[in-house]
């Protein structure tokens, strides 16, 4: 019809606008960051976000960790300096975060693997329950770990005993 305008749904409009930015590296990241708060994927979405952030964080640390341990062979005299850095309380905080990341990534990954082999479990309501159980398992393991490691950081790293 002449003079009429096709009104796109808001989602389609947003994707269309994102296409104009497709030549920019990370345009997809921009889109995702805009959409994450609006997606309303409930606990499922946050489990996914946490899994991704934890995975990337672990990979970053793993890179540093493989290289610093390799010093024992390549530049032996530097190894002690590298370890001394890890003893700093700020690295202690990073260590606490790292252990949390690995724990969540592992437990959440186990949930995904089990669900993949029992596809009926992928029903959204069942997943919501499974994710809650994953959170419970995570807290059950992480809370004592947090206190044991936090105690070491406080006693040795900060108070120097």
């Amino acid at each position, binding site marked *: 019809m002449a003079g009429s305008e096709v009104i796109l749904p808001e989602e389609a409009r947003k994707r269309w606008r994102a296409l104009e930015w*497709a*030549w*920019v*590296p*990370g*345009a*997809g*990241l921009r889109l*995702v960051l805009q959409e994450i708060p609006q997606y309303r994927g409930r606990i499922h979405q946050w489990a996914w976000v946490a899994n*991704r952030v934890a*995975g*990337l964080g*672990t*990979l970053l640390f*793993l*890179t540093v960790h*493989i*290289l610093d*341990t*390799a*010093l*024992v*062979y*390549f530049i*032996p*005299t530097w*190894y*002690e300096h590298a*370890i001394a850095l*890890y*003893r700093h309380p700020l*690295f*202690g905080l990073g*260590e606490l975060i790292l*252990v949390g990341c*690995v*724990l969540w990534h*592992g437990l959440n*990954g*186990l949930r995904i*693997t089990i669900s*993949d082999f029992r596809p009926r479990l992928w029903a959204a309501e069942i997943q919501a329950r499974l994710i809650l159980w994953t959170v419970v398992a995570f807290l059950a393991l992480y809370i004592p*770990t947090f206190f*044991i*490691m936090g105690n*070491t950081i406080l006693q*040795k*790293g900060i108070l120097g005993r």
Partner: protein
Amino acid sequence: MAAIPKVAPRTVPVIRPRLEVWLWTFMRVSGVLLIPLAFGHLAIMHIINNVHNINACFVYYRWNVLFWWRVYDALLLFLAYIHGLNGLRHVIDDYVHHRGWNQALKWAAFIGGALVILIGTIALIGGVRVTALPEGCPPLG
């Protein structure tokens, strides 16, 4: 009642798993193996021991006296790092849609990752050099 049409027997091509399928399988298998491996590593290094009592001497005895820990660490190195690199590949595909940048970043991750694994492997085979040992840590006779 309509007659049931006769279907001639035919051969169905077997679908061979392609790279993506192998990588999916690798992610599940390595992920499951990494749960005891990585959790065990964290328990030993961060709860039972900690960065305040770990030094080159610790690594030296662990790798030389208890040789199997080298195998354990090798498994961790390969499984965890390849698992991580493949995860990074998915992340790049998700967020970087520009074809050139997408390819460039994936190649950079692949080459950089291969280098890190190579460095880790050499160090794991070479072991702790005696010159890295602190005072009061006698080298094995």
